[in-house]
C-alpha cells in the first residue's frame, strides 16, 4: 500500500476518534432537548465543571481557597489527601446530581412555558455562571487530569502499519492515541447503556414519554419535574464522561467549555432530537474536518477546523432543514 493511502487512512481513523469525542458532548445536548425542549448551551461548561470538580476532589483541593484567602488573608490550598479516581468520580457524580436538582429548583421551574429562545438564553446565563463559579471554586490554572486511562501512541499499531507500506517506502507507521481508542470504547458503552436504560426501565420509558409529548405524559401521571431532574443528572453524567476524556487529552482548562461550540454543528447535522443522529453526525464532522484540513487546509493557510464543521452543517441544512435523523418539521398556521 502506498504511504499516501495509509496517511489518508490514518487521518480518517483519527477523524473518527475525534468524532466520537464530539458525539459525547452532543449526546448531552440531545438528551436534554428531547426531554424538555431546552437547547442547553451550558453542556460544555458542565463538562468543564465536572472535570474541575473531579480534579479538585482527587487532589484534595480546598474549594473556594482563593476567595477565602482573599477575604480572610489565610493561606489554605489543600486538605492534604488524595482520593482514588473511582471514589472521586462517584463524588463528582453526586455533585452533578445536586447541580441538576438546583437547576430544576432555581431556574427551570420558574421558566415553564416561556419561549424556547428565552430558555436558551437562560442556559447561556447558566453557562456564564458555572464558568465563573467553577473558577472561583477550584481556581483557573490549567490542571492535569489522570484517572488511570492509558494514553500516548500505540506502538503495536505503528509496527503493524509500517509492515503494510511498500518495502523501502518513506513511511513510519500510523499514530493513534490510545486515549482516543478508550474514549471510543467508553462512548460505545455509554450509548448502549443509555439505550438499554431508556428501552427497558420504567424511568427510561417515562423519559421517552415526556420526550414524545409533555401534556400526554402529565396526564398519565408522570411527574415532569422529577423527569427533568433525572434528565439533567444524566446529562451531567454524560458531561462528566466527556470532561474526563477531553480533560485527560488536553488538560482541564477554560477551553474545555468551548467543545460545546464544536458539538453544535454535530447536532445540526444529526438533528436535535436523535441520539443516533448525534453519533453519526459526530463521526461525519470528525472525519470531514480532518480530511479537509489534511487535503485542502494547507492551500488555505490551515486552521480550517475552526469553521469547516459549521459550513458543512450549514450547506447540509439548506438541503435538509431538519438534519439527518431529526423529526420532520411540519408547519401549520
Amino acid at each position, binding site marked *: 500500500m502506498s504511504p499516501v493511502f495509509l496517511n489518508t487512512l490514518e487521518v480518517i481513523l483519527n477523524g473518527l476518534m475525534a468524532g466520537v469525542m464530539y458525539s459525547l458532548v452532543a449526546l448531552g445536548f440531545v438528551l436534554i432537548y428531547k426531554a424538555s425542549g431546552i*437547547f442547553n448551551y451550558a453542556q460544555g461548561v458542565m463538562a468543564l465543571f465536572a472535570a474541575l470538580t473531579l480534579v479538585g476532589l482527587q487532589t484534595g483541593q480546598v474549594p473556594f481557597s*482563593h*476567595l477565602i484567602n*482573599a*477575604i480572610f488573608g489565610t493561606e489554605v490550598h489543600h486538605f492534604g489527601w488524595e482520593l482514588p479516581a473511582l471514589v472521586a468520580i462517584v463524588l463528582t457524580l453526586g455533585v452533578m446530581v445536586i447541580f441538576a436538582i438546583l437547576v430544576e429548583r*432555581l*431556574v427551570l421551574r*420558574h*421558566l415553564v412555558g*416561556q*419561549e*424556547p*429562545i*428565552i430558555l*436558551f*438564553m*437562560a442556559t*447561556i*446565563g*447558566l*453557562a*456564564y*455562571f*458555572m*464558568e*465563573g*463559579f467553577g*473558577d*472561583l471554586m477550584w481556581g*483557573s490554572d490549567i490542571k492535569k487530569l489522570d484517572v488511570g486511562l492509558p494514553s500516548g501512541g500505540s506502538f503495536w499499531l505503528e509496527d503493524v502499519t509500517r509492515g503494510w507500506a511498500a518495502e523501502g517506502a518513506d513511511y513510519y507507521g500510523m499514530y493513534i492515541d490510545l486515549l482516543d481508542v478508550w474514549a471510543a470504547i467508553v462512548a460505545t458503552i455509554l450509548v448502549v447503556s443509555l439505550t438499554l436504560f431508556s428501552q427497558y426501565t420504567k424511568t427510561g420509558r417515562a423519559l421517552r414519554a415526556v420526550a414524545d409529548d409533555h401534556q400526554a405524559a402529565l396526564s398519565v401521571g408522570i411527574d415532569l419535574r422529577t423527569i427533568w431532574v433525572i434528565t439533567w443528572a444524566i446529562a451531567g453524567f454524560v458531561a462528566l464522561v466527556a470532561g474526563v476524556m477531553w480533560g485527560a487529552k488536553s488538560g482541564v482548562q477554560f477551553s474545555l467549555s468551548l467543545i460545546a*461550540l464544536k458539538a*453544535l*454543528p454535530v*447536532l*445540526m447535522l444529526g438533528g*436535535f432530537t436523535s441520539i443516533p443522529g448525534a453519533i453519526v453526525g459526530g463521526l461525519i464532522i470528525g472525519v470531514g474536518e480532518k480530511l479537509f484540513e489534511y487535503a485542502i487546509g494547507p492551500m*488555505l*493557510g*490551515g*486552521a*480550517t477546523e*475552526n*469553521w469547516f464543521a*459549521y*459550513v458543512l*452543517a*450549514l450547506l447540509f*441544512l*439548506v438541503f435538509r*432543514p431538519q*438534519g439527518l435523523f431529526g423529526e420532520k*418539521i411540519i*408547519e*401549520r*398556521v
Partner: protein
Amino acid sequence: MFYREAGDFKTNYADDSQTFPIAFDRKAYYAAMFVAFCVIPLVINSYWEKSVLVPFLVWSIAALGLNILTGYCGQVSLGTGGFMAVGAFAAYKLMTAFPELNIFFVVFLSGGITALVGIAFGLPSLRIKGFYLAVATLAAQFFLVWLFNKVPWFYNYSASGQITAPERTVFGVIVTGPNAPSWATYLFCLTILFLLAWGARNLTRGRIGRSWMAIRDMDIAAEIIGVDPLKAKLSAFGVSSFYIGVAGALFFASYLGAAEVTEAFGINQSFLVLFMIIIGGLGSIFGSFAGAAFMVLMPVALKNLLVGGLGWPTDIAAHLELTIVGALIIFFLIVEPHGLAQLWRLTKEKLRLWPFPY
C-alpha cells in the same frame, strides 16, 4: 401629575403619530439630547470616555442592529462578532486605501459592505429556522474571524496581524486613533448613534418594520397575507448588518484604536450583544439602549466595588463578575422576560394614573 396626554391637543396627523405622544416625554427627550450633545462633551474625561461612554454608544449601535434582526424580525443570530469584524476591517481597508475619504463616508461605507456580507449569510434563513439558524450564523462568526486572521491582505501584511486605526479628522479635529481627544470621539460616536437610532425608530414603525414583525410573529401566516419572506428577511439581515458593521467600525477606529480579530471580535461579543437585547427588551429601541447601558456599566461598577473598594485580586473579581452576570441574566429572564423596556412601559402606565390609580 405631569405625565398626561391631557391638554396636549393634536391637530394634524403628524402630531398624532409622533414618537413621543406625551409632552413630558418629549421634553425629557430634548433635555437628554441637550445634555448628551452640549453638556457631557464639556465635562468628559478620558476615564469616563474609555470605560463608560464610548463603549456604551458603540454597543448601543450594535444592540440596535441585532434588535432589528432578532427582536423585530425574529431571526436569532450569533454572528454579531463576525459582522462587527467585517465592519472594522472594511473601515481599515477604506481608511488606508483612500486617505482623503471623509471618516463619515468610511464608517457608513463599511456598514454598507457589512450589509452585503450579512445578506449573503442571511440567505440560509429562508430555509432554516429557529435554533438551526442560530447555529448556522455561528458559521459566519467562525468563518469571518478565520478569514481575517488568515488572509494577510485584510490587515495590510502587518507583521503582528493587528490593524491600527490611522488618524482621521472631522472639521480639523482628530476623531480616530489613540490621540483623539475624549470629547471628539464621544461626539463623533454620539452623532452616528443619533442618526442610526432615529433611522431605526422610523424604519421599525413603517411598512418594512411591520413586515418584519409579521414574519417574527408567524412567518407562514405573514406569507399568506402577502408579506414576501425573501424581502423581509433579507432586508432585516441587511439593515441589521449595516448597524452592526458601523458599530464594528467605530469600535475599532474610535474606541480600540488597534485590534486583533480573534480577541476583539470573538464569539463572546456575539453573546454580549445578545444579552444586551434580551436584558434590555426584544423588539424595543429603548431596550437596546437600556441593555447596552446595563451590560457596560455593570462590569465597571463591579470592578470598582471589588478591586477598588475591597481590594480583591483582579482574577477573583473577574470570575465573580462572570458568576454575577450569569446569575443576573437568569434572574432577569425569570422576573421579567421582556426586559428593562417592559419595566419602563409598566412604570409609564403607572405614572399616567398617578396619584389616583383608579
